[in-house]
C-alpha cells in the first residue's frame, strides 16, 4: 500500500517513533543502571544518564555468575537446537510435500496439533519423558504384555532406562521437537514448481540428491530465518533448564544464572538490591541474540532482493 499524503506520513512516523520509544526505554534504563554504583542505582529519583562504572560492574557480574562456562553451555545448547530444528523441519517437510504415501495427511495433522502444545503446556509429561526417554516404549511394551512375556520366558525383568536429566541432550531435544519450523519449510516447499522437481528427475537426481542440490540451496533464506528464531528462542529458555538441570555447576544456562542476580526478598535478605550488577549481566546476556539477529539480517535482506524468477 503506497499512500502519498503528508499527514499520513507524519502519523505513520509518529507511530513508529512511539513504538521505538516503548521498546528502547527499558533497554536504556538497564544500560544506565549498569553504569552506576550500588548507591547511585538505588537513589531517588532514578538516574537517566550513564555513569562511569560499566566495566567494573560487568566484571563483577561476570565473575559472580560464572558466565564463562555458562556462555559455552548456552552456546552449545542453542546451536544444537538450531541445527536439530533445521534438520528435523527440513526432512519432515520434504517428506510431507514431495512424497505421496498412506497416512501422510494423518501425520500432517498430528504435527499440526503439536503447534497448540508448546513446551510450557506439556512440561510435566515432557519432564517425565526426559527423566527416562525410553519410558514411552516401556509403557507400550507393558501394555501389550511384551514385558511379562519376556519375563516369563527368560526370567529377565525388562526395564528400559535412558535418563536425559542433567545433559545437553535433555536440554536440546524437547526444544527441537516442535512443529513451527516444519510449517515454515512446508510453505516454502509448496511454492517449488512441479516442473523443477520433474526437471531434476529427468536429470537423474534421486530424492536425496534433489533435496541436497536444489531444495536446500533454494531455502537458504528460510534456514537463516529459522536459525535466528530458534537461536533466540533457545537462548532465552528459562523454565526448561531450571527443571532438567540440577547440576548447575556443569550445565547451567546464562538466563537461569541471570535470574540469580536479580534481587528479590530471598537473595538480598533485606539488604540493598544489587540492580547495577543484575542490569550489567542482562546487557551481557542480551548481546549474542542481538548479534545473531544483526548478522542474519543481511541474509534476509539479500533473500528479499534477490528474487530469482
Amino acid at each position: 500500500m503506497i499512500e502519498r499524503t503528508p499527514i499520513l506520513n507524519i502519523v505513520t512516523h509518529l507511530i513508529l517513533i512511539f513504538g521505538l520509544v516503548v521498546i528502547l526505554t527499558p533497554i536504556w534504563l538497564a544500560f544506565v543502571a549498569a553504569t552506576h554504583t550500588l548507591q547511585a542505582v538505588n537513589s531517588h529519583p532514578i538516574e537517566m544518564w550513564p555513569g562511569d562504572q560499566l566495566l567494573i560492574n560487568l566484571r563483577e557480574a561476570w565473575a559472580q555468575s560464572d558466565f564463562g562456562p555458562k556462555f559455552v553451555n548456552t552456546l552449545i545448547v542453542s546451536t544444537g537446537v538450531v541445527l536439530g530444528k533445521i534438520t528435523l523441519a527440513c526432512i519432515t517437510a520434504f517428506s510431507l510435500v514431495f512424497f505421496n504415501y498412506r497416512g501422510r495427511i494423518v501425520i500432517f495433522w498430528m504435527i499440526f496439533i503439536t503447534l497448540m502444545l508448546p513446551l510450557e503446556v506439556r512440561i510435566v509429561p515432557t519432564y517425565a519423558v526426559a527423566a527416562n526417554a525410553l519410558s514411552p516404549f516401556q509403557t507400550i511394551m507393558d501394555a501389550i504384555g511384551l514385558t511379562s512375556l519376556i519375563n516369563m520366558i527368560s526370567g529377565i525383568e525388562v526395564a528400559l532406562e535412558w535418563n536425559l536429566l542433567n545433559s545437553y541432550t535433555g536440554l536440546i531435544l524437547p526444544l527441537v521437537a516442535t512443529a513451527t519450523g516444519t510449517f515454515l519449510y512446508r510453505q516454502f516447499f509448496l511454492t517449488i514448481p512441479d516442473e523443477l522437481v520433474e526437471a531434476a528427475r529427468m536429470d537423474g537426481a534421486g530424492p536425496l540428491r534433489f533435496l541436497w542440490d536444489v531444495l536446500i540451496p533454494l531455502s537458504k533464506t528460510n534456514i537463516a530465518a529459522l536459525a535466528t528464531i530458534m537461536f533466540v528462542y533457545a537462548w532465552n529458555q528459562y523454565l526448561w533448564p531450571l527443571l532438567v538441570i540440577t547440576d548447575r555447576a556443569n550445565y547451567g544456562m546464562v538466563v537461569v544464572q541471570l535470574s540469580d542476580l536479580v534481587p528479590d526478598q530471598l537473595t538480598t535478605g533485606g539488604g540493598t538490591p544489587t540492580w547495577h550488577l543484575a542490569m550489567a549481566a542482562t546487557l551481557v546476556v542480551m548481546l549474542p541474540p542481538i548479534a545473531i539477529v544483526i548478522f542474519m539480517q543481511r541474509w534476509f535482506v539479500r533473500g528479499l532482493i534477490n528474487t530469482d524468477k
Partner: protein
Amino acid sequence: MAEISIRDISKTYGKNTIMQGVNLEIRQKEFVVILGPSGCGKSTLLRMIAGLEDITKGEISIDGTVVNALEPRQRGCAMVFQNYALYPHMTVAENIGYALKVAGVPKAARLERVAGVAKSVGLGEFLDRKPGQLSGGQRQRVAMARAIIREPKVFLFDEPLSNLDAKLRVQMRHEIRRIHNQIGATSVFVTHDQHEGMTLADRLVVMNKGTIEQVGTPEEIYERPASVYVAGFIGSPAMNMLPGRVDASRGAVLLDNGQSVPLPAQQARAANGNLVQVGLRPEQLFLASPASAQLTATYVFQEELGSGRVYHLQIEDIPLCVVSTEKRQMTEGDTVGLSFAADAVHLFDAKSGRRVARGTADRVLEVTA
C-alpha cells in the same frame, strides 16, 4: 535414434478417464508433433513417455524395451519444459552440466562438454550468469542445452515456445528443427499452436479429448482432414462447414438453404441420401460475380491482412469466411458470388463427423489414419 511404440494407452486420475486407447508408432529420427487444444491430454501423453506419469493401462516401449516400469533417467529421454524449469540458484553452466554431475562425470570433462554444448546453442558468453539474469529466449536455450548435453535417444518438448514473443518463437522453432536434424534423435513435440505443428512436424498427431483423431504428414492432414474436428482445428481461419444432404440424382449436396455443391458422381452415389457437412477452406474459395458463381452469400464485414483480406459472409445464418488477395469494397447486405475447384470440397458425415472418402486414394489414407 529410437523408435517409440505406444500401445493402447489409457490414463485415469481417480475415477476420471482422461485418455483412452491411444496407439502411436514413432519412427527413428522422426519429428512428431502432438497437436490439440489445451486440456486434451497432450502433456499427459508426453509425460507418460518421459516416465513422469504412471501409465494406467497399455504399454510404451522405446527401442523395443518396454519402459512402463523404468525410472525417467533409465529411459534415455530428455525433456524441455514450458516454463524452462531451470534451477534458479545455479549458473547457466551448472544448469547445463547438472545431469552429468549427477551421473558422476569428472569435472574437467563435464566443463568441456558444457562449453561445447553452450556454444552450439549460442550461450557461450552467459555461462556464469544465473537464470534470473537471462531473457526468455536465453533461458529457453539453456533448457535446450540441458537436454542436448545428455545425448538422449528421445527429445520431449512440452510447449517450449509458448512463453516467447512471436518473433523469437519463429527463430527458436528453426533452431529446434536444426538441432533435431543435427543430432538425429527422435523428437516428440507438444503444442496447441497449429503453425508450430505444421512447420515443425514430419508427422502430426491431432488429439481430441484424450484420443487421437488423425496421424499424418502436415500436408495430408491439411488436404484430407479425417474429421470435422481436425478440419476445424487445422487451417486459419477455420474451414467453413455447410450442412446438407447428398442427392445422387443431381450429383450434388443439397444445402439446407436450397443451394447445391457438386460432388464426383462416385462419391455422390456412395453416400446417397446421407446427411453431411460440406467443408470448404476459406483460402480455396474465390470471389466471383453472382451470375457465374457456384454459391451465393451475403456480405457482413471484412478484415485487412495486408497481403489480402478476410471476407466474412453468411449463407442464411451460417457464417462463412473467404480469404482473398483481391481487395474489394463492399457494403453490408451485398450479395457475393463464390466459386471453388471441384477438389476443394471436403465431405463429412453429419452424424459421426468422419470424412466421407472421395476416391480410392482417399480411402487408403482413411485406413492408415
